[in-house]
């Protein structure tokens, strides 16, 4: 229950003024507000078996140190708590605090004298009939300090608890006031109620967590005040399903990554998606072409709107990414910041080793040579053996197939490109010039085969213009 301090004169218990102790003044302290107490202090009424602590402040108003040599209580139902060992020296202008607890007892009135050095303060407290309060789930409490918790509630959501105020007595009980503080807590219960003997009153209190923060309030039921608390939090996003519009990833391609939540987001969430790449080959450490287009980066922000299931990347429903030119594994990891995900928001896909992929192949005639230009990628970094077959304009093969092994050259080329992180990955352009004599216009086309550890790639009917 919340401590309250109200001072007023009680003429019947007027004691001698504190003239002999003018250096020390007493006051009650509630929050940061001190209220002077000169002769008497009346505690607010409490319920049976409840207690109420009041903080007293003793201040030295003189210009010399003053010691408190006497701090005592006489009477029933009160107790000094947390005092230091006497004497307590108070420097000029300084204060000490101590607590006097009204421990109460059966319904009735209790008095005691509080003595501070030569000053005596009359204390009085009352124990009155009071209803008992209980709360139903999801609320918990009240505990020994009168705290009732609504627990954690997703932001924008509510928690509704049923409060029961019971009259344990054999006669009707007027409960007043019944008041609620705290903007996050609402009830339609009237501000007072008469509860028949042995009966109870129920009402609901609704806690609304408009933001992800802690809320507090209070409920006063007659002489009892209970603290209310509740915390709003951002509901974790369910882990999304990631897909890229195909069943498998291939090097040298671009895909659109989509991320769909299995259920709508309870609030708008901003986060990031980070992609990483681990090459399959130890020959390279990375492939920087593996990235999102938008930022030429491996990090992209995303937003998912409240009640939406689709993550948006720069306002788009998909995030274009390139697979680069190296076999390996691509991992996408989503980070929803403080909101987080309730599951594993990570996807890892493998780019398998594949035969050489050609992105362009052209053939041309020089004056004394036939020129082949091929552009492509080898995501295994192992290519080398090649064959070349020429055909005339009628498709008849000219001579035998020519074989050559460029393995050492490609290995040297890739080492030269490497230096740790390859700028263009395994992408290559190979221009081959075949010296020849005769009527080169009779050559119509050629076939090329390229071999790497994953297989053989054929480019057929590369036409000469």
């Amino acid at each position, binding site marked *: 229950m919340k401590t309250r301090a109200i001072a007023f004169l009680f003429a019947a218990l007027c004691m001698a003024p504190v003239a002999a102790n003018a250096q020390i003044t007493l006051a009650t302290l509630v929050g940061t507000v001190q209220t002077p107490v000169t002769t008497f202090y009346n505690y607010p009424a409490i319920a049976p078996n409840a207690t109420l602590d009041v903080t007293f402040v003793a201040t030295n108003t003189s210009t010399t140190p003053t010691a408190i040599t006497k701090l005592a209580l006489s009477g029933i139902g009160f107790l000094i708590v947390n005092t230091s060992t006497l004497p307590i020296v108070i420097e000029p202008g300084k204060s000490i605090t101590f607590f006097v607890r009204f421990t109460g007892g059966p319904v009735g009135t209790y008095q005691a004298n509080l003595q501070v050095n030569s000053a005596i303060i009359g204390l009085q407290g009352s124990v009155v009939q009071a209803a008992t309060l209980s709360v139903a789930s999801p609320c918990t409490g009240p505990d020994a300090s009168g705290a009732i918790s609504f627990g954690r509630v997703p932001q924008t959501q509510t928690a509704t608890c049923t409060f029961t105020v019971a009259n344990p007595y054999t006669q009707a009980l007027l409960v007043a006031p019944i008041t609620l503080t705290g903007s996050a807590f609402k009830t339609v219960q009237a501000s007072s109620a008469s509860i028949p003997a042995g009966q109870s009153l129920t009402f609901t209190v609704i806690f609304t967590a408009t933001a992800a923060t802690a809320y507090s309030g209070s409920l006063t039921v007659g002489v009892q005040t209970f603290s209310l608390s509740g915390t709003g939090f951002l509901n974790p996003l369910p882990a999304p399903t990631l897909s890229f519009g195909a069943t498998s990833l291939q090097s040298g391609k671009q895909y659109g990554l989509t991320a769909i939540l299995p259920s709508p987001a309870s609030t708008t969430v901003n986060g990031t998606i980070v992609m990483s790449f681990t090459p399959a080959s130890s020959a390279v450490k990375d492939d920087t*072409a593996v990235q999102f287009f938008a930022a030429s980066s491996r990090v992209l922000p995303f937003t998912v709107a409240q009640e939406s299931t689709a993550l948006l990347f720069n306002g788009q429903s998909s995030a*274009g990414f390139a697979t680069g030119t190296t076999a390996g594994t691509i991992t996408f990891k989503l980070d929803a910041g403080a909101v987080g995900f309730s599951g594993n928001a990570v996807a890892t896909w493998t780019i398998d080793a594949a035969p050489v992929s050609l992105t362009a192949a052209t053939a041309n005639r020089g004056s004394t040579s036939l020129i082949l230009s091929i552009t492509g990628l080898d995501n295994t970094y192992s290519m080398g053996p090649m064959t070349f077959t020429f055909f005339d304009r009628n498709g008849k093969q000219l001579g035998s197939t020519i074989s050559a092994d460029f393995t050492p050259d490609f290995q040297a080329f890739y080492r030269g490109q490497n230096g740790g992180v390859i700028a*263009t990955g395994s992408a290559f352009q190979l221009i081959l010039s075949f010296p020849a*004599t005769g*009527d080169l216009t009779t050559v119509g086309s050629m076939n090329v085969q390229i071999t790497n550890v994953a297989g053989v790639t054929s480019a057929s009917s590369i036409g000469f213009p």
Partner: protein
Amino acid sequence: MRNILVHFTMFLAGLLWATAPARAQLSPPQLGYIKDTSAALRPVYGIPAAAFLGDPATDAVNAFACTAKLCLAKTDTALLRFSTSDPASAIRTEAPAGAAVIAVANGTTDGAWIYFDGTQQFAHWQAGTWSGIDYSPSGAVLSLRATADGFDYAVVRDPTSGSAWIEHYSTADGSVTVLDSVDTTGSVLLLDSGVLYAADGQLILRRADRTQLTFPLADVAALDVAGKGYVEIEAAGGLWILTTVPGFEQLAMLPGTPNGGGR
């Protein structure tokens, strides 16, 4: 670039006979140059779907065309010619202010044809100088293509017609011949072996033999020859590169474009 010598023995069925080392060059691919979103001309390396942009060769470009060996770019008031392997060696020539359409010849010479929008004038560029020709078609010139005896051009004479005409101008006799038309008044790019144009949310690559490929791509704003076999496409969704080499056609998005969105 890595040079390799491989000894081949070629027996070509009596038509040719050759035995000599074959010269091979192995290098990282350079696809050409593209105009980025800030109008800087930048080299493109790698393969289309895993490309890298290099440092700008020049900026404030409003038109350009590149072959495998050279680029010709138009800034507001100048033409810049540079080797694709050495952009620092650019030759600058004063030119009429405004936009332009450029076609670089894909032959051994480095000649080019230019249409200056500001003066509505065709010009021939050669060895660092340009000279105008006495012909100006009515309508909006969309694209140029160098030919053996002059140039082809795509022109929209009537914006309400829904089509662009492809015509040929012969420098030999000054004649103009209608070659073809495409059903668009949007972006058109004449290629060595066909025409690329945008229509109805699609990019259409029509070969000389009338076969065609379509790529879904909306809001195409510009088409430029990035290099031999590669076209840069500026669309609302970003910058794209299209491989036009027969049999290897592929549309890929370039890195660093405004959004990584779909087509």
